[in-house]
């Protein structure tokens, strides 16, 4: 699916933030924004929902902790119980440290790999920067043009208030680049 989009380039995060808020308030749909660093407040300005990756982290952590607790119990009390200094086979406190480490390991790797999967980041992926200098000092706002209500000159005029550096219309294929 291809869509016409309007790219507006800014040189400062404050301009991008203000423009994002204004564009959204005027009822236009924002496809995405591209920034060289994480701009604070941009997620609210774009209306992004809180990420659900925290749940992935929680579930992986719980899986690590419970899985390791079960494994420790099984090896020490079921598979081959060994009397170590008369200590109980199924002592829970001595199982806690390793279970904790397993929880952290799985939660950490789980959330990072989930991030890679959801954001489609993988080695060998070709990057086509939407505009030059996007990873250096330029901020780009991508506005959906398929809306019949959108009038390009009006939007361009509105963006001049936010010190827009340049605007460009593009046809993008397949949603996100």
């Amino acid at each position: 699916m291809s869509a016409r989009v309007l790219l507006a380039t800014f040189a400062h995060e404050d301009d991008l933030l203000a423009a994002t808020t204004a564009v959204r308030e005027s009822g236009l749909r924002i496809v995405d924004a591209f920034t060289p660093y994480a701009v604070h407040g941009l997620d609210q300005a774009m209306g992004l929902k809180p990420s659900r990756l925290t749940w992935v982290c929680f579930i992986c952590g719980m899986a690590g902790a419970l899985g390791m607790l079960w494994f420790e119990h099984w090896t020490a009390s079921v598979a081959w119980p060994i009397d170590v200094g008369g200590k109980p086979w199924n002592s829970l406190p001595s199982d806690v440290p390793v279970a904790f480490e397993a929880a952290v390991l799985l939660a950490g790797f789980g959330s990072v790999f989930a991030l890679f999967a959801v954001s489609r980041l993988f080695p060998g992926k070709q990057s086509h920067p939407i505009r030059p200098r996007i990873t250096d000092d330029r901020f780009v706002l991508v506005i959906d043009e398929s809306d019949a209500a959108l009038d390009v000159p009006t939007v361009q005029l509105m963006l001049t208030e936010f010190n827009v550096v340049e605007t460009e219309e593009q046809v993008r294929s397949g949603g996100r680049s």
Partner: protein
Amino acid sequence: MSDSDSSLRPPLITGDKTLGDVTRDICAPMDRTPTSLWYAAFFVSLAALIIGVAAVWYQIATGIGTWGLNKTVGWAFDITNFVFWVGIGHAGTLISAVLFLFRQKWRTAVNRSAEAMTLFAVMCAGIFPLIHMGRPWLAYWMGPYPNTRGSLWVNFKSPLLWDVFAISTYLAISAVFWYVGLIPDMATIRDRSKPGLRKRITSILSLGWDGSARTWHRYETVYMLLAGLATPLVFSVHTIVSMDFATAVIPGWHTTIFPPYFVAGAIFSGLAMVTTLMLIARKTMRLEDYITAKHIERMCLLMLSMGCIVGLAYATEFFMAAYSGNGYEQFVFLNRALGPMSWAYWTMVTCNVIVPQILWFPKVRKSLPAVFVIVILVNVGMWFERFVIIVTSLHRDFLPSSWAHYVPSTIEIATLVGSFGLFFTCFLLFCRIAPVIAIAEIKGAGRLKKSDLSMTTSEAPQTIRAQAAVHEAALTEAP
């Protein structure tokens, strides 16, 4: 808008930089040929590393009888080095994770190098228990895997096994944390380098990063989660290291103060090492505008507070020994302070408790040479702390007939030298091949000058076209 925009706070970086300047400045050391100072440091480190490799090869081929250990002092130099290096790593996590959670924006100038330091320090630490096994090729026996001996499983009740899991998890999570932080910067380098090897490598490492706000939004969430996971992890790691000792019945080891005492000591030694590296990096990499005197001063304040906590722990240990009514415990501490190894004890107290007190004076904190001397002394003092805890507790135990003395062998000293060689070789290479400062983070946190609106020539025609369109639109809109 970030709170760093407040005019009440001094800027994090000096020199009135634009975003483009930041990219250029931080990537510059990777483009130019290294300074002669870098070459000198690199070859010294490499020489030390080669000495270490030779020593390790010799002691594994011959056996660990080449060490100065005896049957009374069964743990000494090797485990001292292990605890020392693990401790060094902890300040890296403190800076990258704990200060991140506390929203301490000044950390952005130092977190990348601190994380790299963590990684290299934990690598150095891991070597020592491996060598200590005598047969390091059987290291996989420490893993709980189905085997032909039963299966005979590992003993999950042993703190030494907890250590295996703690250190390996710590190494893995530190590496992931570091790499995730590097991804946007790898994309920056990819986009500014000409086609060639560097562009190919950074393309692979940056995973096709395109700076999308949606990705940034998820990325920030995951970064926060990793910081939240790394914080309890770092406390757990040194707590478990301290339990290697605290769960033994040896007087001087068998105390409940060990976990917090070890964690405080670890962070203290690590801060000293981070500051040492920061002072070296800002000088050799010409990053004075990014790692400012303000950063060094804040590190000094952290070190001062940690030094006081460590001092309190030393005093508490003596109080507990006196109060315990246990003759063996009391003897160990008297022996520590007045016995044949008292020189090591007093070196430790001087370097860790007395010397850092001069950091109370702002003049001292602002003088970089003075700070450099202090951090080196703290590094020495913290190495001796581990030596004192391990050796003085062991060498005179319950039975006077088994008392012994311990002197390290040349091989052990060469191994320690080698670990420093490995650490600094890795760090100096890291300074050459990766941005020493997190570019994306410092852009987000620093109060930078608005980038000037000048454009490259390729951009200009489109802009003119766009502006013409805007003007046209304005004219048609006008009544």
